[in-house]
């Protein structure tokens, strides 16, 4: 059987196939140009179209240009290349195609004219102003235009961050692909088989790589801040002024778990193991409060990802592996550096997901920098576990936009 290609299909099938491709492309373009870029709080399609009439006009123009290219191709390119007709003769031979693209061209030009005519002029354009004022006005107009463009770009960017991944595209691609594959077997068309194979594969892939769970970082921040505020208030009310110390005890019910001890005085002292083992919060010898570190759960998660008990590892191991876990596996930060100089450890975190939370936490005097945000706290927990020594957070510095956080830890020699 002769293989089916687009050229040797009958004209009606050609039109059907190409019309189908054009409809699918048009729907995709409508979705990308109008719906995706302008959606704020899910307005109806009617509202979107009314608000974005200019975009709709431009879209129609794009479609008309596609049509013009299509008819030009059939009227001239196809006739010249396939049938070796002289170019001038094609105007006569494919008169219907020529007529079609001429009509489309005229419509496209009229739309352009209508768009320009109905574009509301700026009130300032309608008045005649002195030269020095008009220059300032021009500058201001340019500035306003620039700011509006920036605002639009930022809005789109925010929307991109906020949008929830959908499985609709995946299902649609899989369905169309499966139909194309079945059709390819029936009509024995390799083109359809390739199209079907591609669409099915990408549809399934889209569904496969779609994140299983998606949580906005604002949600994460809003759930963590109240508990940290409570700790801050508790320490303020207790009037404990000591520097919080991260430490881990092997006698705890959960072996090796880290705690934070806040002494009542400024003296750097550790609590008695017996008192810790009793699971008390307010300790008497020495006087202080014992709290669960805000980053303990995160530290446990990192440990689980590493697949190792951190109390059996050393600082070198942590230096070599922590970056990989935080960046590649948990995707918490874009870059991570850890440097150890005797008892001082410097950690640099770039663009952490806890960026906003860290900024909020920095306003709480008892939490920042001594106890730290959940991320800094989790690193302190890990450090105390690998060194088997108490650790204090000396300093926590965030860059202006909070994208880079420098944390300085000190290992306390007991």
């Amino acid at each position, binding site marked *: 059987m002769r*293989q089916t290609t687009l050229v040797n299909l009958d004209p009606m099938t050609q039109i059907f196939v190409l019309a189908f491709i054009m409809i699918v492309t048009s729907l995709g373009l409508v979705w990308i140009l109008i719906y995706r870029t302008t959606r704020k709080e899910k307005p109806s399609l009617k509202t979107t179209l009314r608000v974005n009439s200019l975009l709709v006009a431009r879209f129609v123009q794009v479609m008309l240009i596609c049509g013009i290219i299509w008819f030009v191709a059939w009227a001239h390119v196809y006739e010249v290349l396939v049938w070796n007709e002289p170019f001038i003769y094609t105007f006569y031979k494919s008169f219907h195609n020529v007529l079609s693209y001429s009509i489309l061209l005229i419509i496209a030009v009229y739309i352009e004219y209508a768009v320009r005519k109905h574009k509301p002029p700026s009130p300032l354009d309608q008045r005649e102003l002195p030269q020095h004022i008009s220059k300032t006005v021009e500058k201001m107009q340019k500035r306003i235009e620039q700011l509006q463009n920036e605002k639009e770009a930022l809005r789109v960017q925010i929307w991109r*961050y906020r949008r929830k*991944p959908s499985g609709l595209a995946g299902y649609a691609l899989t369905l169309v692909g499966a139909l194309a594959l079945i059709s*390819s*077997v*029936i009509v*024995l*068309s*390799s083109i*359809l*088989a*390739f199209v079907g*194979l*591609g669409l099915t*594969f990408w549809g399934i*892939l889209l569904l*496969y*790589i*779609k*994140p*299983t769970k*998606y949580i906005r970082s604002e949600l994460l921040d809003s759930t963590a801040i109240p508990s940290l505020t409570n700790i801050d208030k508790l320490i303020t009310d207790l009037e404990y002024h000591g520097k919080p110390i991260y430490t881990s005890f092997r006698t705890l019910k959960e072996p090796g778990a880290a705690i934070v001890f806040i002494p009542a005085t400024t003296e750097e002292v550790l609590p008695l193991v017996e008192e810790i083992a009793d699971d008390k919060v307010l300790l008497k010898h020495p006087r202080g409060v014992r709290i669960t570190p805000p980053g303990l759960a995160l530290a446990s998660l990192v440990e689980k990802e590493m697949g190792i008990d951190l109390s059996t590892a050393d600082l070198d191991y942590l230096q070599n592996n922590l970056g990989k876990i935080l*960046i*590649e596996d948990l*995707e*918490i*930060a*874009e*870059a991570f550096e850890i440097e150890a100089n005797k008892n001082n450890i410097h950690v640099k975190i*770039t*663009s952490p*997901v806890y960026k906003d939370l860290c900024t909020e936490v920095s306003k709480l005097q008892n939490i920042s920098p001594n106890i730290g945000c959940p991320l800094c706290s989790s690193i302190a927990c890990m450090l105390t576990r690998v060194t088997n020594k108490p650790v204090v957070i000396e300093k926590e510095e965030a860059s202006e936009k909070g994208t880079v956080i420098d944390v300085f830890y000190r290992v306390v020699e007991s």
Partner: protein
Amino acid sequence: MQFPLSLDDISLWLAITAVILLITSELSSPSYGRTNLMIEQKRLKKAALTLGILFMITVLVRIYGIIMAR
């Protein structure tokens, strides 16, 4: 009725798709700071590697066919 693609066609398709996916998975890797992409990076990598291996298998089948034909 028969499937219109031969092993060579599928092999070519696998090669192209595998290359696209491998490059995509590498460029979108969190190692380059792409941590805000809302996709399962590990799954993408796994899919890319699977396609690459499938392509290698089709090549091996082809080589085996050539050897056996002699």
